[in-house]
């Protein structure tokens, strides 16, 4: 259906739901999802707004390929100002919710204001209404989804909800849809909670609304795309078999696996928490952690992990509700909950990951924040009296307890809920937060991968790996191999990756397609689906436009070039082991060139010429 051309505006303060036409002139400039919703957010809100105030807005947005037969065409994003960072936030999720929103006939839903009491939004095709959520408040995402489906007697309703973390203002609360897919990063769930919005429930039946601009060309482009994904070693075999978790050993062997809050760069327990380990029979019960893989709407890759825990593991001995199959750890979660904390027990990580899905927590920030707290504990700055438990690096018990407390809002979990930047500042050691602009960096160490260092420093939503993914050229050799230690050539490559990623995130498809699809493979599907000229040149210019629009928003919010930096540990403490032993992140060698290739001033501000060239 590409664009439905319908926007649903929900004013939570007044309780009204209003349909309005999509601004097609903006759609032609920003495509959809990340780009288009950013344009709406920038046009409608003050960048200096308090993220948790009624004046902030939150947009659920699909792309034109969401809900179409395009492989992986099931994505949606949540765009708002993020409370963890104060930057623009854009969190992308898979599952089936995004396609259902499209089938109901909506490109996006804009939430504004704050409801005086807890509510949830029910969308049934054209009909949308806010319903009382008093009975849902205090429930987990899993309970909320089940309760809504039962209440409306419709198992096919798709639900995106917040757990107790979103209600409690955990600054890295996510929004969970379809039980275990999540708009996970930057605290978008806390924004939803601040609006007293518990859930969005959607049932869409407009399957006849799918109308690509050129149906024959679209069918051919989609079929060709699926053949490429199936034939590619990464998307056809690697990801379905091992998931993203296959990277644990790759990145650890490459010497870029941040360990124990970045004290180390390689983890001796990596093998035990890897994708390979998930396949192996446990000595305790003779069963493997991994049951099978899973896929989101329209996906022909199927990288998702479905796991079943050892029922006798200490974390769930008295909790039978966690003994069933649920979403297992993926690479970032395994790293954060494991290597960043020094815990090499796959079952512990699986349990903590279940909790992240159950109550809506970003496992990257959760694990990284626990890792930072563990370092403070080892330094004697935090004590057992203060935290309520012993928490040295490597303590599986501490990871379990802190994940539980953060989910439920108890004890020291209230401090973990702040994220590592605020936690470390609270105890007088701000430099121990492994974050950029307040968001924790994920599972790659910038001392080993210089391009990733530059990527973390310049990402518009704080440290992030899916705003460019320089791991591809620096480790995997996709599309070309680059020396991970080199600083030369990283700035232009990163710019190209960032701009292309903005296109992918605005189309409604999954970033993982780019392991196999070229920009041209994506362009041919967008061109056939969407009315208008969608040449590769126009798309890449659009990606650059989106990047600069986000940057302008952050600059207006008060961010400057001084925020484009890394934790001191990355810049001054050399890697202790591995192929990059002795290296630090050489950001100073790359950042000026990056500003230059972006057409920004040395202060990191887009020049007037750049803004004119991009139509901003």
């Amino acid at each position, binding site marked *: 259906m590409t664009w439905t051309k319908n926007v649903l505006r929900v004013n939570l303060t007044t309780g009204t739901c209003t349909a309005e036409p999509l601004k097609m002139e903006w759609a032609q400039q920003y495509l959809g999802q990340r780009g288009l919703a950013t344009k709406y957010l920038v046009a409608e809100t003050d960048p200096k707004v308090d993220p948790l105030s009624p004046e902030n807005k939150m947009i659920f947005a699909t792309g034109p390929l969401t809900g179409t037969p395009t492989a992986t065409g099931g994505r949606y994003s949540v765009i708002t100002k993020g409370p963890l960072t104060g930057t623009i936030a854009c969190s992308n999720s898979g599952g089936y919710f995004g396609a259902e929103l499209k089938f109901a006939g909506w490109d996006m839903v804009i939430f504004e204001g704050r409801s005086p009491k807890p509510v949830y939004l029910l969308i049934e095709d054209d009909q949308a209404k806010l319903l009382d959520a008093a009975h849902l408040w205090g429930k987990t995402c899993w309970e909320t989804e089940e309760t809504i489906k039962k209440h409306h007697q419709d198992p096919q309703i798709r639900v995106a909800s917040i757990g107790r973390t979103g209600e409690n203002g955990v600054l890295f609360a996510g929004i969970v849809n379809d039980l275990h897919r999540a708009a996970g990063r930057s605290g978008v769930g806390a924004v939803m909670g601040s609006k007293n919005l518990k859930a969005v429930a959607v049932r869409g039946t407009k399957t006849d609304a799918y109308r690509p601009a050129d149906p024959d060309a679209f069918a051919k482009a989609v079929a060709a795309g699926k053949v490429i994904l199936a034939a590619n070693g990464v998307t056809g075999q690697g990801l379905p078999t091992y998931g993203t978790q296959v990277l644990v050993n*790759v990145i650890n062997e490459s010497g870029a696996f941040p360990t124990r809050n970045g004290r180390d760069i390689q983890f001796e327990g990596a093998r035990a928490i890897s994708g390979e380990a998930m396949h*192996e029979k446990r000595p305790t019960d003779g069963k493997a952690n991994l049951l099978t893989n899973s896929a989101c709407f329209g996906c022909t890759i199927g990288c998702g992990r479905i796991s079943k825990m050892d029922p006798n593991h200490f974390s769930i001995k008295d909790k039978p509700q966690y003994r069933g199959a649920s979403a297992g750890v993926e690479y970032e979660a395994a790293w954060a909950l494991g290597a960043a904390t020094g815990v090499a027990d796959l079952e512990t990580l699986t349990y903590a990951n279940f909790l992240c899905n159950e109550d809506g927590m970003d496992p990257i920030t959760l694990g990284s924040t626990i890792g930072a707290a563990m370092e403070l504990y080892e330094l004697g700055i935090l004590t057992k009296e203060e935290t309520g438990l012993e928490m040295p690096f490597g303590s599986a018990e501490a990871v379990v307890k802190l994940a539980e407390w953060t989910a439920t809002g108890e004890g020291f979990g209230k401090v973990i809920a702040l994220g590592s930047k605020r936690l470390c500042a609270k105890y007088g050691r701000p430099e121990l937060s492994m974050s950029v602009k307040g968001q924790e960096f994920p599972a790659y160490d910038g001392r080993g991968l210089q391009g990733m260092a530059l990527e973390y420093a310049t990402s518009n939503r704080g440290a992030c790996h899916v705003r460019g993914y320089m791991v*591809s050229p620096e480790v*995997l050799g996709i599309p070309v191999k680059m020396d*991970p230690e080199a600083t030369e050539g990283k700035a232009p490559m990163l710019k190209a990756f960032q701009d292309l990623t903005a296109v992918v995130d605005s189309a409604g498809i999954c970033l993982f397609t780019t392991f196999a699809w070229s920009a041209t493979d994506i362009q041919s599907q967008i061109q056939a689906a969407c009315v208008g000229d969608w040449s590769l040149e126009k798309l890449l210019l659009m990606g650059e436009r989106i990047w600069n629009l986000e940057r302008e928003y952050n600059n207006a919010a008060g961010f400057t070039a001084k925020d484009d930096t890394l934790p001191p540990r990355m810049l001054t403490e050399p890697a202790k082991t591995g192929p990059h032993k002795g290296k630090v992140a050489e950001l100073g060698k790359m950042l000026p060139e990056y500003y230059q290739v972006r057409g920004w001033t040395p202060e990191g501000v887009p020049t007037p010429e750049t803004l004119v060239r991009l139509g901003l």
Partner: protein
Amino acid sequence: MKATLKLFATLSKYLPAEARKTSCIDLELATGTTLLELIAQYRIPPDLCALMLVNGVFIPPGDRVTRILSEGDTVAIWPPVGGG
């Protein structure tokens, strides 16, 4: 000379059964053994060796024929993989 071979993901099956749990085996190699000769020794199809590291450093496909292994080297090999 001593060296270590690590085979990951679907390449694990080319390791002896007892080594699969660790993905790793210690080797005694003849001096002058090249990467390509090592791959052949373990009957690993070269076209499945998408990513090869020696001591954590990437070895371009074109260098595998000529790269001679040294005492204490660790070779790690993967089929096509990706993630994020």
